[in-house]
């Protein structure tokens, strides 16, 4: 097999494996499988940058190294949204046919992309991740898979989707439709205009070790490469390539009939070749710089606005998943990829609406409507790619308080009807609520010990009273609860049956 054909197939197969793996994780993951996916689903650059202090460093270095050596291979091999667009693009070729589905060289939207990237960069530098919720490809992919894909899977399987949310579904569906349509007609336009990660890696890939090169002696300027380039980055007429937009898909190489375009070691050639790429033309560069500065200014403005509004205390109406720490920390780190929503075996994590104020829109919020937080479970922490839900030793998680119990005794079944209940006591893993005898009644009533409560919501979930007699009050700062004092075992030796 020809080398380039091999490379192209290698890309396709790797990309499909990565895409299928990620899609499987988001759509079908079961609680036990999550551990298997832990490393795999975290090979994502933006979450890794955000979580650089909590295990993301290795991924960041790996992606940087890959980009310096091979160019933007990340976008073709590892980015699920990029791969999705390639799939759409390939399907478009199939549907529209070779004659109609033609790409052509287009100028880079430098103004827009550098503005977006610098705005995002400034925001991240000042821990304001809201723009990334809407820009980062992994976050977008996750949102689409969870809020559109999972309900569909549930519908087909004939079961209920516990974390269903109309708003999140509509938003994700619109984003999915938009990106799909863009890639159907214009290939990788999103990646080369909006995606901040793509723009960032584009800066590096301009000087990467291996690059696509046009052999000027062989090139007849036939445009076949330009037509096949979904990034629209090959200016065949002038035989120059905009490397900042090239995602190394190698489609151009295989269509060239004269072997005039190749993927080559390029560090030595640079001095022999003309400076290439539209972005490097002086006038353009200055303008791009200016616009980048404007973007940075916009980012800074947003950061300031966010700071100002954060200084007012946000009243949270839902608990945060364990490991979030504080609401501020969650907002600083979370890009709402919804991996935690996908992984939660109890289906208690849902996209926030107004739960955390406007800055917290779509961030993971806990709802005890369909379940409660598993005592021995920390799947959400295990799958979080950005460390927003900090993975901690299980013993620490078991005491991590995400909310605190509030009992309204007059609503309680035992108080109202005088019949036994005890559902809250039954479900409480730490016995922060316990059925306690009340003298003269012969009945047992719930009694709470908030100091040891971890806010798992077992009591709220199961309480059969309407309105609920026992609920969990969300906390915007998670702390370790007191350790429960264990009752000592009464040593009893029994020889007979007692009957």
């Amino acid at each position, binding site marked *: 097999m020809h080398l380039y054909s091999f490379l192209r197939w290698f890309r396709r197969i790797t990309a499909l494996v990565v895409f299928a793996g990620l899609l499987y994780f988001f759509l079908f993951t*079961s*609680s*036990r499988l999550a551990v298997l996916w832990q490393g795999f689903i975290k090979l994502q650059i933006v979450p890794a940058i955000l979580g650089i202090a909590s295990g993301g460093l290795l991924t960041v270095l790996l992606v940087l190294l890959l980009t310096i050596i091979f160019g933007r291979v990340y976008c073709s091999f590892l980015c699920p949204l990029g791969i999705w667009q390639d799939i759409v693009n390939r399907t478009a070729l199939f549907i529209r046919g070779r004659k109609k589905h033609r790409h052509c060289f287009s100028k880079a939207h430098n103004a827009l992309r550098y503005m977006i990237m610098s705005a995002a960069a400034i925001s991240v530098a000042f821990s304001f991740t809201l723009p990334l919720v809407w820009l980062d490809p992994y976050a977008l992919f996750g949102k689409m898979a969870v809020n559109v894909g999972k309900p569909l899977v549930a519908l087909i399987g*004939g*079961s*209920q989707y516990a974390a269903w949310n109309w708003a999140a579904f509509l938003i994700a569906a619109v984003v999915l439709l938009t990106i799909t349509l863009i890639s159907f007609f214009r290939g990788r336009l999103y990646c080369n205009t909006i995606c901040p990660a793509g723009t960032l890696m584009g800066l590096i890939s301009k000087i990467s070790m291996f690059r696509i090169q046009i052999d000027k002696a062989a090139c007849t300027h036939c445009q076949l490469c330009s037509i096949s380039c979904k990034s629209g980055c090959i200016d065949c007429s002038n035989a120059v390539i905009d490397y900042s937009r090239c995602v190394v898909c190698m489609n151009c190489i295989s269509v060239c009939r004269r072997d005039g375009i190749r993927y080559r070691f390029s560090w030595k050639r640079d001095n022999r070749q003309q400076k290439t790429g539209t972005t490097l033309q002086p006038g353009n560069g200055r303008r791009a710089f200016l616009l980048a500065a404007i973007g940075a200014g916009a980012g800074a403005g947003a950061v300031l606005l966010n700071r100002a509004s954060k200084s007012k205390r946000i009243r949270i109406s839902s608990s945060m998943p364990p490991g979030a720490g504080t609401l501020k920390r969650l907002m600083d780190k979370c890009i709402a990829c919804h991996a935690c929503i996908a992984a939660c*075996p*109890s289906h208690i994590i849902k996209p926030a609406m107004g739960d955390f104020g406007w800055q917290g829109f779509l961030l993971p919020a806990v709802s005890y409507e369909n*379940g409660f937080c*598993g*005592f*021995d*479970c920390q799947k959400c922490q295990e799958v979080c790619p950005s460390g927003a839900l900090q993975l901690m030793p299980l013993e620490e998680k078991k005491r991590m308080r995400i909310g605190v119990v509030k009992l309204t005794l007059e609503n309680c*079944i035992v108080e109202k*009807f005088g*019949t*036994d*209940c*005890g*559902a809250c*006591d*039954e*479900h*409480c*893993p*730490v*016995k922060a609520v*316990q*059925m306690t005898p009340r003298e003269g009644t012969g009945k*047992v009533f719930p009694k709470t010990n908030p100091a040891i409560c971890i806010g798992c919501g077992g009591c709220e979930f*199961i*309480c*059969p*009273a309407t309105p609920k007699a026992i609920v969990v009050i969300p906390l915007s700062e998670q702390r370790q609860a007191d350790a*429960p004092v*264990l*009752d*000592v*075992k*009464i040593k*009893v030796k*029994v020889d*007979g*049956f*007692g*009957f």
Partner: protein
Amino acid sequence: MERRNFLRTAILGTIAGVAGIKNSKLLAWNNSPGAETPQSADIPDLVAVMGGEPGQLYARAIQEMGGIKRYIKPGMKVVVKPNIGWDKTPEFAACTNPILVAAIVRDCLDAGASEVKVFDHTCDQWRGCYENSGIQEAVKQAGGQMVYAHEEKYFRETELPKAVRMKKPKIHEALLDCDAWINVPILKNHGGARMTICMKNYMGIVWDRRYLHSNDLQQCIADAATFAKRPVLNFVDAYRIMTQNGPKGRSLEDVQTPKALFVSSDIVAVDTAATRFFNQFRDMTIEEASHILLAEKHNLGTTDIDKLNIKRILL
């Protein structure tokens, strides 16, 4: 028809009881391992075994009860219903012992059961319960099937004409469709119902647990037990028991290990016996666990176990 059945059972029971009392005087505390399989008239009303591993306890108990073939006929669809309510490993005594469950499943299949299904409508997240209790693995190895019970679609509305409060619960389809079922709870204290034994184990066959809790829990438990298809046998797993912080438990401090097993076809009798056994570890009366008395009012069995033919075996 029901009354006639009841009378017949009562008469047969009395005969068996009288015969049993005679027998028990001769055979009580007989722990010779090679005892013959008893003839029908010799079958005790209740067998209690103590001092062995779960497999041994089961083998001896079922032998004294006349062997599984008395209860499970070839071709029958069988359900074994343990308590798998909590995401806890076996040593915490929150769920029925997996070795016991597997032994029953295997025995039923050996007796010619066409299928043996096992399920519980769990309280904790179901997958964690099925897996960490060890029951899923044990049942699969024994050749049984674990079936889902975590969604409402697996339950069908069923009338309980004799019930006082819970007249139309949704009951699990496997149980509705089976030919015989075996109830295998673990012995624990319970914050709400005070005790959780055989009848409390019925909560796992019903979809809406909240209904029971909010409509007089004790009465609803007794109501659930009026479900017309009675378990052919009720095994109470008391290998490990939970004496405090039940039914979920908090630590190993809550667990005692008396290594016992009780079995009877009379659900009220075996719950009464188990409560008295439990009383040795921690004060408990059947008046407190009042669903047992309410079930007696439903004519589901007797709390007057001193009149029964009980076979007590110390291994």
